[in-house]
């Protein structure tokens, strides 16, 4: 079968940049066909989308606000992937993480702002991690498949939050299922306020300090995964459980650890949404961000840098997509969901479809210069 040298001998920029970009192009090409089918001009739509995402300072702010959520959920999915686990539960973990932020904001009204915010961040991680702990533990100790249990936990989170918001945390005397507003010292400052205090004018948007926290989280994940023993152990378990056991690394311990970190990161969506923007607990605030994390992690090849760029792309799609629907009413946020599905399909499920062809084409074009040329 394989007359040509195996794909591993292509340089990394081919497998880590060219292949994902090609998969992305295919996904966008099909999205373009769908836009053409509904009678709109795909190129005009693309232009409006980019302008809607980057055309003005406030628009860029909203793009980065969405990006923040996707960095958190993308990192969450990637950590689990590194351990060989597929955490579909980011949506539920984000929801419960937000509950943690909300409870801190409701309870610690009188405390100094920096302390409340730090406690809220810790609560978001703790609550998200707790929600991921049970599926992780059941996978590690009882062999219950983490995919199924995290799906179930998404529904359980949704039921729990609806119950809490309808029956318990609802603002007394109100009809809408939402909590009262959080104390102001639990609000994360908006970026336009921070820059304003420094004398710089940037557009007003939902972008808040969480963006910086997300970047720090991405950096810390990079350090953790590639420069600590714990990260090494998690990756070893993900790559080869038998080898891990032989090397004295406990798979079950690392599965639980990876799920805890994964859930904690997903829970941090709560900081951006609850402490950053809504300032109260509301129904369904994760709005599918947890699922976008799957697409982001797959596209970013589970590397924090890749995840950052993939998050930026989805931030652009979300922000540009909502602007786009003002100009072309038939193209709504649903179209962005379609693109998201296509990206998961082509960067994830069908990643093996184009990869060998691209690598082979590269090797053929690069000819004798490649190390892949068989010994003569």
């Amino acid at each position, binding site marked *: 079968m394989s007359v040509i040298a195996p794909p591993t001998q292509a340089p990394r920029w081919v497998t880590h940049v060219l292949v994902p970009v090609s998969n992305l192009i295919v996904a966008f090409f099909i999205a373009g066909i769908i836009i053409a089918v509904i009678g709109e001009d795909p190129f005009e739509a693309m232009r409006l989308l980019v302008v809607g995402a980057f055309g003005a300072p406030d628009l860029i702010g909203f793009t980065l606000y969405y990006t923040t959520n996707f960095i958190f959920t993308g990192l969450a999915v990637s950590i689990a992937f590194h351990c060989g686990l597929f955490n579909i539960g980011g949506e539920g973990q984000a929801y419960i993480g937000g509950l943690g932020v909300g409870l801190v904001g409701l309870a610690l009204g009188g405390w100094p702002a920096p302390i409340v915010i730090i406690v809220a961040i810790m609560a978001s991680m703790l609550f998200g991690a707790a929600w991921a702990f049970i599926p992780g533990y059941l996978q590690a100790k009882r062999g219950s498949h983490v*995919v*199924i249990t995290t799906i*179930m936990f998404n529904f359980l989170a949704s039921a*729990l939050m609806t119950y809490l918001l309808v029956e318990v945390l609802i603002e007394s005397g109100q009809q809408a299922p939402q909590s009262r507003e959080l104390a102001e010292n639990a609000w994360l400052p908006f970026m336009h306020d921070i820059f304003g205090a420094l004398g710089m004018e940037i557009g007003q948007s939902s972008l808040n300090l969480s963006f910086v926290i997300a970047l720090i989280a991405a950096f810390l994940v990079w350090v953790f995964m590639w420069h600590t023993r714990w990260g090494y152990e998690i990756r070893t378990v993900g790559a080869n459980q038998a080898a891990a056991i032989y090397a004295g690394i406990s798979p079950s311990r690392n599965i639980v650890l990876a799920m805890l970190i994964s859930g904690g990161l997903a829970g941090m969506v709560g900081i951006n949404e609850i402490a950053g923007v809504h300032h109260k607990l509301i129904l369904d605030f994760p709005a599918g961000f947890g699922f976008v994390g799957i697409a982001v992690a797959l596209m970013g090849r589970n590397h924090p840098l890749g995840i950052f760029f993939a998050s930026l792309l989805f931030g652009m799609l979300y922000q540009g997509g909502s602007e786009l629907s003002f100009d072309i009413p038939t193209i*709504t946020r649903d179209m962005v969901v379609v693109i998201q599905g296509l990206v998961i*399909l082509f960067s994830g499920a069908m990643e093996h*479809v184009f990869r060998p062809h691209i690598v082979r084409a590269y090797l053929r074009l690069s000819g004798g210069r490649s190390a892949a040329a068989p010994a003569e």
Partner: protein
Amino acid sequence: MEEFFTMLVLMLDATLRVATPLILAALAGLFAERSGVVDIALEGKLLGAAFAAATVAAVSNSAWLGLGAGIGFSVALAMVHGYACITHKGDQVVSGMAINILVAGLGPTLALAWFHQGGQTPRVEGSGRFHPWNWPFAETLEDVPVIGALYSEIISGHNMFVYLALIAVPITAWVVYKTRFGLRLRAVGESPEAVDTAGISVSAMRFQALIVTGVLCGMGGTYLSIAQNAGFLRNMSAGQGFIALAALIFGKWRPWPTMFACFLFAFTDAVQTRLQGVDIPGIGIIPVQFIQALPFALTVILLAGFVGKAVAPRASGLPYIKER
């Protein structure tokens, strides 16, 4: 007593109607997973079929053409899954997730562009819908105590799909346990190497299983949009594909137990609708969300192995790589 009996009859009636798409989707999942292909895209296929069926029925005003479109689209989605996971050995969970998300966006997008009604199809009425079958003498017997109510409310008066779902269970049991196809299906999910050694194509078997999956989900989705309801609504499957998946696990990948799990989950749904805000002596008011969460909580407890043990087909989730 009389009142209680009437309530029970109405609840059983509701249970049947809610259980129908669950049974069809769960049996669909049974064929896929027994062949070794994990299918978390039951939800997406139900929703996709609901959209396709309602769209075609709204345009053609023919329920049967709608059913054809629903099955056709659902099978097409199953084939995408097969192409990614069987042909190219892609990750089955990732592929399933992709299909779920893709369909969730695609239905409302196309519906909005074609019908301009905010992402839903127009109401489908008359010959565009599947209507209840009233069995002979159902009206005459209505007033006969006990038997009359049982006959005219529970046995008679459902649309075709309710009966189809009930018939599909023994047929599935027969196909899976008594036919050559079923033997090969189970073998390919447990031990694909053995099937391959016997000279049977693992890929072909799995594709055939996925076609059955597509057909059953197509019927379930069609039921949702043009039998139970009168048109397609955004996210109208509302997690039923996942409840079906839970029922399949609860039924340990066997047809009859899976059907009973579907009935159990559907019955809790009927109970929940009945008990909304009702003060039960000694217990108080049970929150609706608690009952809604029950199928998912029960499945986690079962998966944890505290109540029996759910063991999936051994090769499910693993792409088959032929040795050279």
